[in-house]
């Protein structure tokens, strides 16, 4: 069983028609997982016994014909807490951490009868763009196992791309859903800030973090966002706006849609082969009856600097809680309490996490706060204003998701700035709190290239509508890597 030829709708009809039981689907999923994941290392921790028990209980109860997600196997990024299921955020700091509660999104999955297969690999505490920063394993790109799957949600992306699960959830602080979606040829949505509860998401940059779905098709993605969206009393930043049915506008008709293409997203910093794919996508949208016009986001080039100041500052504060006292790693042979803090943190965190904590602590420290943290907050406002101006005249913005296709494992890990520049096209979206989605748009040298769609605040529906029309007119989403499943 792989998920290359079935989407949520077809799996759901098989489950409702009892052609397939939830238990059979779960067993087949684990059988495939064990074979395929030996090659790509996308999962950190499996939930096999509990998943099978939940599937059997669901079979006994019966599949709700109105719930397309009932009985569907799902992967969950390991920075989303799962009650009684070890949650590490891919850090030695949390190697043995067993949460006592579920994240709100996980409660929604289980209450709606999704079957949690396991926890997916990631860059430690979601800091990185290659999943090489995991303390436990390096996930490989299923399209070419010598290449990275992107990150930080690289395990979720690779698992979906390899047909191990039809849907996985990730988190995106500066591109961590969209960039791996682009590198793996799948659909990844970073919802509007506040659309999804962050309760139970291990905090990195609290003004930027959002949880979102990763799937092989746009329609599956819309259904998977329907499940987790909405206000939550446990997250005071989650919006009270009504949540529309994101699958409702998928007609394939986008005639008259006004699309903007920022010139900064097509400049010399972007791989020419990626630009070619995006140019072809522009033509596709025009063929579908939309208009595409060039616009400018003049301050987007400052996004990387502003982001690494803001996100690192928030991280340095959020990660103070890891002190070796109440939970997590504690260093051995400590002499006193100060020793517990310093040695536990120094031995428990990996290098990239330490780098971010250092950058954040520096940016917030006396004498530097105004030049760095305050200034970054002002530049953030200017980036938001650039987007607002464009959305006065356009329905949506398109461009590449990442400047290049997936790079080789080991190529960028020793050069932080090169790694940070991978996020140059995704970061402005997080700074502005807007929704952004990556969809498969073609290939460069055999590796997938993603098209990024950026929407106005709380307008995920337009992204799904445009993404669906593009998907219906193209066959990139049907391409699958040779590795995995019944290939």
């Amino acid at each position, binding site marked *: 069983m792989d998920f290359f030829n079935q989407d949520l709708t077809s799996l759901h009809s098989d489950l409702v028609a009892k052609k397939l039981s939830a238990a059979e689907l779960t067993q087949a999923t684990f059988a495939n997982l064990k074979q395929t994941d030996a090659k790509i290392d996308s999962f950190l921790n499996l939930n096999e016994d509990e998943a099978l028990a939940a599937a059997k209980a669901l079979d006994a109860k019966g599949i709700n014909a109105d719930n397309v997600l009932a009985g569907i196997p799902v992967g969950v990024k390991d920075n989303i807490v799962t009650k009684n299921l070890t949650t590490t955020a891919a850090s030695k700091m949390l190697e043995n951490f067993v949460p006592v509660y579920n994240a709100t999104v996980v409660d929604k999955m289980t209450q709606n009868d999704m079957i949690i297969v396991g926890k997916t690999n990631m860059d430690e505490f979601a800091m990185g763009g290659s999943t090489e920063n995991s303390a436990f394993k390096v996930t490989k790109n299923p399209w070419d196992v010598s290449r990275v799957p992107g990150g930080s949600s690289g395990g979720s992306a690779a698992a979906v791309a390899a047909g191990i699960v039809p849907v996985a959830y990730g988190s995106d602080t500066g591109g961590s859903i969209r960039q791996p979606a682009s590198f793996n040829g799948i659909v990844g949505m970073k919802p509007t800030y506040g659309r999804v509860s962050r309760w139970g998401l291990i905090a990195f940059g609290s003004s930027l973090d959002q949880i979102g779905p990763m799937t092989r098709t746009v329609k599956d993605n819309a259904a998977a966002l329907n499940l987790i969206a909405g206000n939550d009393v446990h997250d005071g930043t989650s919006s009270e706006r009504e949540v529309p049915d994101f699958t409702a506008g998928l007609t394939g008709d986008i005639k008259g849609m006004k699309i903007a293409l920022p010139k900064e997203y097509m400049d010399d910093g972007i791989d020419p082969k990626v630009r070619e794919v995006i140019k072809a996508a522009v033509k596709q949208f025009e063929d579908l009856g939309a208009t595409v016009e060039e616009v400018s986001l003049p301050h987007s080039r400052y996004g990387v600097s502003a982001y690494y100041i803001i996100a690192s500052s928030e991280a340095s504060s959020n990660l103070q809680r890891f002190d070796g006292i109440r939970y997590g790693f504690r260093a051995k042979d400590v002499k006193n309490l100060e020793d517990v803090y*310093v040695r536990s943190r*120094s031995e428990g965190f990996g290098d990239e996490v330490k780098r971010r904590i250092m950058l954040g602590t520096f940016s917030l420290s006396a004498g530097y706060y105004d030049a760095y943290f305050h200034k970054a907050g002002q530049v953030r406002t200017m980036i938001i204003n650039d987007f607002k101006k464009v959305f006065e005249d356009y329905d949506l913005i398109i461009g590449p998701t990442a400047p290049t296709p997936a790079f080789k494992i080991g190529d960028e890990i020793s050069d932080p700035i090169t790694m940070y520049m991978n996020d140059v096209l995704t970061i402005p979206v997080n700074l502005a709190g807007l929704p952004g989605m990556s969809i498969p748009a073609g290939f460069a040298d055999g590796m997938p290239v993603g098209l990024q769609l950026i929407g106005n605040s709380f307008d995920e529906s337009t992204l799904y509508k445009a993404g669906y029309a593009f998907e219906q007119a193209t066959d990139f989403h049907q391409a699958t890597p040779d590795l995995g499943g019944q290939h």
Partner: protein
Amino acid sequence: MAEERINAEQVAHVAGLAKLEFTPDQLETFTGQLEKIIGMFEELSQVDTEGIPVTSRVTDRHNALREDVAVKSDERAALLANAPETANGLIKVPAIIDESGDGE
């Protein structure tokens, strides 16, 4: 480097604030990397931000009020199971001052 933005001494100071420690080799590597990254940050000084307000949050909510309702929980054992060291149902930590050299 032509212009020193941050030196090893400052990096060690920041590490102290962040409750981290580095070996001399690590300190050298981190100083070089932080120097480059902070150098990148300096491009922000090109942006005229006179009179521009700071954005620190992008939520559409201002206050999130709810009833203050007490909820019973019985998670003591599960919570303590995550603690690195416990004794008599409590989390155990070493002494605040050095445990060696006090005549024990």
